[in-house]
């Protein structure tokens, strides 16, 4: 007989079994209770608070991996699809007047910059063909053109503003809005975009100007930018308020 073996009475056997199963059942009860407890927690932006906290923790952790040297994979022009999927029309109300549009950039309270599309087009142009990733799970290789946000910020002297933690973008009708962390908006692939497949943006893709930010899910690629502002606190974010992760980074 090895030290792994033992001779015990029926009674001892029953006792050992009952003790182990008692612990087992208590643990099952804990698991069920924990699951129910989780779902009864107060909601923070449509997610139970413990989950929200964990998502924010994930943001901090995976944000450390973030680097301007980590680029979204790019593709040859020929890989770009002709029919670009249109997903979502929040903030795209029909009464929009493109002829009077100017990009509004709130530098400081009381100091607002107005920039026309022609002025934006006069800045160095960057094109990108990348795999646009929707938070729903689909992706599509698409071709966009515009000015790097970082080039725009440099040209318009936003050095002080880009030292803050976040950028907020809002559609002209204020129906859709996103908040983006500064490292992501200053990433070299992030564009203030005015072209798709070499032509001006179609209306349903956010004419005259939209955000293309390959390091984020599609929900952050706000169409039809009305105004931009800077903040150290998280700016309001449409899908964040509906239970999604604020960071939504790839």
């Amino acid at each position, binding site marked *: 007989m090895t030290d792994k073996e033992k001779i015990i009475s029926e009674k001892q056997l029953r006792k050992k079994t009952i003790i182990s199963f008692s612990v087992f059942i208590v643990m099952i009860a804990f698991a069920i209770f924990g699951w129910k407890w989780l779902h009864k927690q107060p909601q923070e932006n449509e997610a139970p608070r413990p989950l929200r906290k*964990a998502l924010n923790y994930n943001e901090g952790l995976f944000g450390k991996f973030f680097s301007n040297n980590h680029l979204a994979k790019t593709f040859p022009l020929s890989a770009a699809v002709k029919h670009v999927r249109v997903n979502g029309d929040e903030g795209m109300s029909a009464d929009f007047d493109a002829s009077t549009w100017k990009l509004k950039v709130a530098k400081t309270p009381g100091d607002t910059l107005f920039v026309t599309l022609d002025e934006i087009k006069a800045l160095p142009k960057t094109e990108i063909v990348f795999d646009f990733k929707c938070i729903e*799970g689909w992706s599509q290789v698409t071709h966009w053109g515009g000015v790097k946000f970082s080039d725009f910020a440099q040209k318009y002297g936003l050095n002080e503003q880009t030292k803050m933690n976040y950028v907020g973008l809002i559609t002209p009708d204020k129906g859709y809005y996103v908040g983006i962390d500064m490292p992501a908006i200053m990433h070299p692939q992030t564009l203030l975009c005015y072209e798709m497949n070499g032509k001006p943006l179609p209306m349903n893709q956010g004419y005259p100007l939209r955000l293309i930010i390959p390091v984020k899910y599609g929900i952050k690629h706000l169409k039809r930018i009305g105004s931009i502002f800077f903040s150290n606190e998280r700016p309001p974010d449409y899908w964040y308020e509906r239970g999604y992760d604020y960071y939504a980074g790839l």
Partner: protein
Amino acid sequence: MKKIVKKHPLAIRWFHWINFPVIAVMVWSGLLIYWANDVYKVGWGDKTILKFFPDSFYKALHIPFRLAEGMSLHFVFMWFFAINGFLYVLYLAISGEWRLIFPNRKSLKESWQVVLHDLHLRKGMPPQKKYNAAQRIAYTGVIIMGIGSLLTGLSIYKPVQFHTLCAMLGGYEWTRAEHFILTILFTLFFLLHIIQVILAGWNNFRGMVTGFEVVPPPPPPTGGGTMEIISPSNELKTDD
């Protein structure tokens, strides 16, 4: 009096029973996520044999329009899955238990004999230690699947930050499909595992909770019997 033998160390029992609800939550939240882009099917051309998943399935389980909930659960419980799995593998390595789980030279041939035995096509099992050859292959396979789920999951979670990994796994869309296939394999493993546990009976199941198994008394000699009697009592000798 009963003869009992230690079978599963306490650590392994904890890893096992923590893993079960954690994987259940991962599969469930994965379903909530997958619904938002449920493109996979079995078939060819326009012919679909099996759609993942039929609408009736979603409806019955109240899956539609819960993407945000699914993502928040998935990206929190992934930590429990990863940490528990990591500690389990670490434990296997340090304790030497891996010798009882990883297949050896004989496992491939013997696993076939085990399958034939389980299908009642063969009498008697090849001699074994803690696990038979088929179990060794299945349990090692499921560990590899777990590592696969972790890596494919990480590379579709942060495909830009882990672009090299994502590219190695075949790119974003392939990796998502691989992650899905692994989940299907996990559920198939689960079903087979449950069936086998039911067939193996109470003594075996109790072993996963209490850690010990009762050794059946040797049958009285009948003369001429060809059954090989397997006793797990020599389980920790690792001479192969």
